């Protein structure tokens, strides 16, 4: 496009090629800012690690609390056979027991006005356990419990309105079990009592 030998152009190019002189003070300010930003990034990483450590510790504590609560509230399993000793971890006074803490927070965030109640049931030999009650229209498919492979305990988190509810467990779609640790709910209609679950607001 142009003649490289043109003297005018060569002079102009020569004048433009050298970098302008950098102000040492400005250079120092930039270096300080870069160092500060690097330190801030390091601090952010440290905080994330700390948060994960705290969260991990809290999870371990909650798990330990669950184990303790379950071991305190559950009677020992019967020897052999299909031991079916149900219990409900459901403090009427709110989410005070460790077993309900995590689930309660999650449930309230999902459905305002409702409360979560964790249900634990011991039936090592059962193939399927459901919680039924007025809160799920006595539907065995609504609140199926899941079994922990290590402990063999069945558990489930119910989402229920505050108030008085009647519930029971159905084992293998055939065995009706009320919770002996909760007050009995007489059943004048069908003669098969359930258990009372009183759920207050958080």
């Amino acid at each position, binding site marked *: 496009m142009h003649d490289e030998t043109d003297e005018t152009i060569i002079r102009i190019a020569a004048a433009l090629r050298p970098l302008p002189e950098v102000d040492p003070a400005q250079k120092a300010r930039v270096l300080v800012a870069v160092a500060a930003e690097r330190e801030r990034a390091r601090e952010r990483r440290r905080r994330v690690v700390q948060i994960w450590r705290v969260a991990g510790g809290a999870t371990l504590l909650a798990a330990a609390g669950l184990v303790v609560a379950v071991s305190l*509230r559950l009677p020992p399993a019967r020897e052999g056979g299909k031991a079916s000793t149900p219990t409900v971890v459901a*403090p*009427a*006074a*709110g989410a*005070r027991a460790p077993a309900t803490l995590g689930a309660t927070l999650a449930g309230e965030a999902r459905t305002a006005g409702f409360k979560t109640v964790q249900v634990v049931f011991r039936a090592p030999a059962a193939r399927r356990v459901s919680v*039924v009650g*007025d809160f799920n*229209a*006595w*539907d*065995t*498919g*609504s609140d199926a419990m899941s079994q922990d492979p290590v402990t063999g305990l069945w558990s489930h988190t119910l989402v229920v*309105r*505050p*108030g*008085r509810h009647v519930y029971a467990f*159905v084992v293998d779609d055939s065995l*009706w079990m009320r919770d002996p*640790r*909760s*007050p009995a*709910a*007489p*059943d*004048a*209609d*069908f*003669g*098969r009592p359930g258990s*009372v679950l*009183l*759920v*207050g*607001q*958080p």
Partner: protein
Amino acid sequence: MSSRRWSVSTALVPMIVGFVTPMALEAQQVAYAATAVSALDSVTQAAVARELVRARTRGLPVQPLMAKVREGQIKRAAPERIRIAVAALSVRLDSARSALGPTSTAAELVAGADAIAAGVDQESLRTVRTASGARDLAAPLGALAQLVASGVEARRATRMIVELLKKDAGPRELLAFGMAVETDVGAGVPAEESAVFRLRAIETQGVGSERVTVAGAPDIPLGQTTTGRPSGGTKRKP
């Protein structure tokens, strides 16, 4: 017989879906409710259908009646008992609405019907409604039903619930009160004595205090509370 059953089922399922859908139930529950009723024999289906139509016409919630059908099925009750139970629940829901007012929610009507089943009369329901004002009635009525089921005389239990409502007790206090009395009764304390003691404890410590809440926890027997035991201590006859 089989063709009659088919025709009843065929007519019933869309009708049930039509009843329940406006109540904003989830699709799963709609399908479930329809299945529950269609599993009955044709005679019971027809009788239950009549009850549903009657309830719907009177503006009563239909879903609790469906749930009663399913409850009967899961408890392996005879069809005739299921029919009678559905009809009885329909009457209780109607009574509850008469007492609680036409603007009552479905949950309040169900709680009222449960309270009536426990032995609470309409006048008591009216009293609780008046004392509650605009607050939701499910918890007060649940606590009332529990007190009566525990053995506290209905009118006396109503006065206690009203007293707590006047002190702005919330659902947690009310239900903890009911549960505490039940726990005491299970431990052998006469229901009336326990109720008086627990009510006095709440009044002494103040509504909403942590100690009241703790005292109401199911696993804490009366003897462990810091305020002492109720007088007497004679065990309830089984």
